[in-house]
Each structure stands twice: as C-alpha cells, then as structure tokens.
C-alpha cells in the first residue's frame, strides 16, 4: 500500500516529464539575478548587475541543443558603494561610454550527468572576447526552470581595472560571477 502511494505519483510525474518535453524560453527577469564577488585587500565584496537580458532555449530532454545569449547593461552595476559604482563605469574599468554592454553567447552545452551542465561560450566585455566555461545546474520548480551557475572570470583578460588598478593585491584578478535564471516554457508551448 505504502509503495503504491509513492509509486503512483512518481509514475505520474515521470509520465508528465516525458509527455511535455518543454523547452524553457521565457526568462523571468524579476526572478533572475546576476551577481559577482570581488576580493579587495582580501575582503570579499559582493556586487550585482541590476539590468540584463537573457535569451534562452533549454529543453531538459535535449540539453546539448540548448543555447543562450546574455546582454548585461554595465551601467546598472552595484559594486558595493557609491564611490565604487562611480569608479567602475569609468575608462579604467568598464568604460561604459564606449562599451555599454557585455555579451555572452553560448556555443554549446555539455551534460555533466544528473542535473549538472556546462555552458561553453564567448564573453565579450570592453571589446575583448574570451572563451568562457560556465558550469550550472538545472532544476524544475513547478512550471519554472531554474538555472544556477558560477564561474571565475579574470578581469585583466578584458582590461577591466587598468592603470593603477592592475595591482591585484588591492583588487584580485579573479572575479566570481554567479547567475540565477528563472525561465518558463515559451507562451505558445505553455498553453498545451
């Protein structure tokens, strides 16, 4: 009896999972976030970008066919204080006047087993393009697909923080980027 109680909903879930092989395409910007951590004099200082847009297409049944594009409005940065925010939009850092957005375009997705994946792609910041590997997890939360990932970016690869700021003892080269993306199936698919 007990087994049945568990087995039935489990089977139903499984069935639902295969029957609606949905593709998550509609990003919920309000629920998504893009944060980072820097180290200043050994002190961890968190920050985030308030404005970014993500295009995504992810079908858990065919993860390797997934793709994503991320555009970050660099001026929307919160680097921890007003002084820092004023500084990092400047020429030595992001130079947002000349390079207002940063862009990540995926070139492929690898399945690492379980709910773990790896997005490969090209990150362009301040006119510099570099290959990036971003491990992430995917989980379904009701109708939502939730992506969580983090990777380390070396700021000097993109000339972020030039001149006196290239002193890594003050601000470390390694910047940890953390993303949390919530997406729903595209409107058309959701109606099915």
């Amino acid at each position: 009896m007990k087994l049945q109680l568990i087995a039935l909903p489990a089977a139903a879930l499984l069935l639902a999972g295969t029957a609606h092989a949905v593709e998550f395409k509609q990003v919920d910007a309000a629920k998504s976030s893009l944060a980072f951590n820097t180290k200043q004099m050994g002190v961890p200082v968190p920050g985030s970008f308030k404005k970014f847009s993500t295009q995504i297409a992810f079908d858990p049944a065919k993860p390797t066919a997934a793709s994503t594009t991320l555009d970050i409005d660099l001026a929307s940065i919160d680097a921890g204080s007003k002084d820092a925010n004023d500084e990092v939009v400047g020429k030595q850092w992001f130079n947002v006047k000349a390079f207002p957005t940063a862009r990540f375009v995926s070139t492929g997705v690898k399945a690492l087993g379980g709910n773990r994946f790896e997005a490969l792609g090209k990150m362009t910041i301040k006119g510099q393009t570099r290959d990036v590997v971003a491990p992430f997890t995917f989980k379904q939360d009701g109708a939502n697909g939730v992506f969580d990932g983090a990777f380390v970016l070396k700021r000097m690869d993109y000339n972020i923080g030039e001149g006196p700021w290239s002193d890594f003892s003050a601000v470390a080269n390694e910047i940890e980027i953390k993303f949390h993306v919530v997406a729903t199936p595209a409107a058309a698919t959701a109606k099915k």
Partner: protein
Amino acid sequence: MPSTDRYSAPAIGAHWIIALLILVAWPLGVYMHELPLSPYKLKLYSYHKWIGITVLLLFVVRIAVRTLMPPPAPLPAPAWQHKIATATHHLLYLLMFLVPLTGWLMSSAKGFQTVYFGVLPLPDLVGKDKELGDLLKEVHESLNWLLFVLVGLHVAGALKHHIIDRDATLRRMLPFGK
C-alpha cells in the same frame, strides 16, 4: 626607588604600543577618507582597520594586565587633579575600546567586512545598512575628536608633572626610566 613605584613592564609596553598605534591610525584616518578611490586608498583603509583591531586586542591585554598587576598608587597632588586624572584615564580606556569597535561596526554597515591582515575575517556584527553606516561614521569621527582632546589633556598633564612638579608621574611610565 622600589620597583612597585613604577608601572609593570607589560603595562608600560601596552601603553606605549597603543600610543604609537593611535598616533599612526588617527592622522591616517583623517587623511585617507578624503582621497579619491584608488588601490592606494583601499590599502590605507585596510592598514587603518588592522591597526584599529590591534588596539582593540591590546586594550583587552591591557585590562587583563591592569587587573593582575595593579598600577602604582597616584603620587601626591590636589584631590581635584586626581579626579581629573582618573576621569581622563577612564575615558581613554573607554575610547580605546569604542573607537576601534565603532570603526569595525561602521565597516560592516558599509558592506566592507574587516579582514585582519587580509587573512582573518572578523564577523560582521551588523548587516549592510547605509543609514546605520553613515551614523556610525559620525559616531566614529566624534569619538575620535574626543580622543584627540583627551590625549592632549593626558600629555599636558604628564608634561606638567614632569616639567613643573618635577615628580615621577611620567618617569614611572617610561620604558627605560628608573
């Protein structure tokens, strides 16, 4: 002169080390906060915080020393002078504790944890809160001006005893005095 007329060696050591640290951290604090943001500024802020935390630690040591090895009895002087000296000393002790503490709290409230010597993270006793950070900055500054006045009074008193009264008040706190 019997040795009990002098402060204990640990008390003398703590007194002068703290004095030196305050003499460095105080002008550093005044200087650094006006600087434009730069790696240099970040470094000075860290040095200032590390010095402050060192004072806080030495304050604890000093209180322990004072409890274990009580200071020598005050030298003869009018009662009102004893009162002022005692009050000044008590306030100085209080500030040796409160000035670093408010700096530490201000740091946390402004969202910058204090990491002692860049390796030992101190807990954030308050969360990031801009208004609290601004308030603590005011408190930290005001306490420092009070510290400035009290140190001035303390030095003036010591010199007055040494030069005018020609007594042992200062000598018994000097590291190499007899």
